[in-house]
Structures are given as structure tokens and as C-alpha cells.
């Protein structure tokens, strides 16, 4: 790849910030628990995009920290999604709803 092919770093950072904000907005406003989880996934991906962008623009060519970070982050996100969705299914069985506003007691 040739360096002139690339846009300045802040394009990616702003895109990542936008995605983060969209995910945050969704997670804060939707009532459905699954969508809150989706919003969180979006935020995670925005963060990952940041890592890749910083890795690419790192002047040290041998460093792979950004890539490694994203690989581990993807794995953790997969685990998080599995456990989170399992919890949601469990909650649905108990409350017969996944509306977050209706789930506010600490005791079942």
C-alpha cells in the first residue's frame, strides 16, 4: 500500500466517534434489551476501528499491538454477546418481557 492512498487519521477517528455516539444513543433510548446489547456491540466496534486506525498510522512499522488488541477484543465481544443474550433469554423466561423499564427489581 502506498501512503498517499490514505486519508488523514481524523477521518477514521470521527467516523469511530460517530458510530460510538450512535451506539450510545441507541443503548440509552431503546426499551428493548436486545437492542441495548446491539448498541453496546456497536460501541465496541467503534473502539476496535479506533485501534486499527491508530495501528495503521503508527510510525513504528513492526508494532502489531493494535491488531492484537482487536483480535482479543473480538473474542471478548463474542463471549460477551453469548452471555448477554443468554441472560436476556433467561430474563424473558422469568418476566415474560425484555422491556428494560419493567425490569427494575433486584429480587426476582
Amino acid at each position, binding site marked *: 500500500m502506498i501512503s498517499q492512498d490514505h486519508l488523514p487519521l481524523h*477521518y477514521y477517528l470521527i467516523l469511530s466517534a460517530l458510530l460510538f455516539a450512535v451506539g450510545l444513543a441507541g443503548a440509552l433510548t431503546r426499551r428493548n434489551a436486545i437492542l441495548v446489547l446491539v448498541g453496546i456491540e456497536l460501541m465496541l466496534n467503534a473502539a476496535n476501528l479506533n485501534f486499527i486506525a491508530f495501528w495503521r498510522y503508527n*510510525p513504528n512499522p513492526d508494532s502489531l499491538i493494535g491488531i492484537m488488541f482487536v*483480535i482479543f477484543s473480538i473474542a471478548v465481544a463474542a463471549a460477551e454477546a453469548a452471555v448477554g443474550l443468554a441472560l436476556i433469554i433467561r430474563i424473558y423466561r422469568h418476566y415474560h418481557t425484555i422491556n428494560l423499564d419493567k425490569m427494575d427489581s433486584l429480587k426476582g
Partner: protein
Amino acid sequence: MSHITPIAFAIITALTLVSAIAAMSLRHLVHCALCLAVTLAGIAALYLQLGAAFVGWAQILVYIGAVAILIVFAILLTRSSEAEPRPILSPYWGVGIAIAVLVFGVLAKAIFSSSLAGRLPPEKADPTVREIGNQLMTGYVLPLEVIGLLLTAAAIGAVIIAMKDSTSGRLASPPIVPEPAQKNARPETPPAH
């Protein structure tokens, strides 16, 4: 061909952002999930464009092949596949939007005020899978093991959490049966006649 990169970036960005917004705002949960898949594919495309091919393919394999499917399953299992009942937003949605905008504002301010803002990438070769593998097996071997453990724990945990109560009873240890009286033991001396 330096003109291709901005065009491709613009297309991918537009697709990603629009589908992300759609994923967060549509009424049908299934549509949201599908839009999320598009967003994730867009992010994978960005990775590819940035030269991180391995991560890009891994993103597709994990997110579209697994996480999106998982979300779809969760939607169907919680009977949310029909349109959401109105209102779809929580009562304080305005506060939420405001906070999101505030966060974006802070981030944008930070990005633009940073000295890194206009930096261009150095010329460097894309890392081969072999390099990544070597690093994973040398410098990052401990995190790798930990991640393996975490994924195992998460898989088992998810199964146990989502297990039906009736079947989870089977996991409990059976009640301890008292040892039967030793009536069958062979006496050394015969009972008195």
C-alpha cells in the same frame, strides 16, 4: 489511483453510518439485526482498507457468522420478531440523545484538538498472517490462553444460564442415600442355636 480511496471510504462510511443509525432506530428487531450485520460488514471493509486483512476476515467470520446469528436467535426466542409495541423508546429518550450528542461533541473536540489529527500513515507492508501468528504464540501467548479460558467459561456459562430449569435440576447431586444396614454381612460365628 489515489482517488479511489476517498470514494471507497465515502461509500463505506455512508453505508456503515446509515445502517448503524437504522439498526438503532427501526421498529422491527429483525431489521435492526440485519442492519447491524451491514454495519459490521462495513467496519470489516474499513479494516480491509486499512490493511488489516486478517482482522477484517475474522470480523466477518465472528460478527456476521456468529454474533449476528446469535442476536437473531435471541430475537426469535424472546418472541420479539414482530414489530415492537409503541413506544419503542424509553420515556427519557431525550436525555439519552443529549448525552450521546454530548459524548460525541467531547470526542470530536478531543480529536480535532489533538496533534495527531492530520497525520498520514507511514509506508509499511501489511502484516502477514504468519507474523500475527508468531506474535500470538510468543509475546501474546498468555492473553491467548486467557482468552481461550474466557471463551470456554462464556460458552458453558451461556448454556447454563439459558438452560431450562427442569433440566438444570439434573445437574444437582442426587440425594445421599444412607448406607443400608449390614444385614448381609457374613457373621463369623453362627447365631446361637
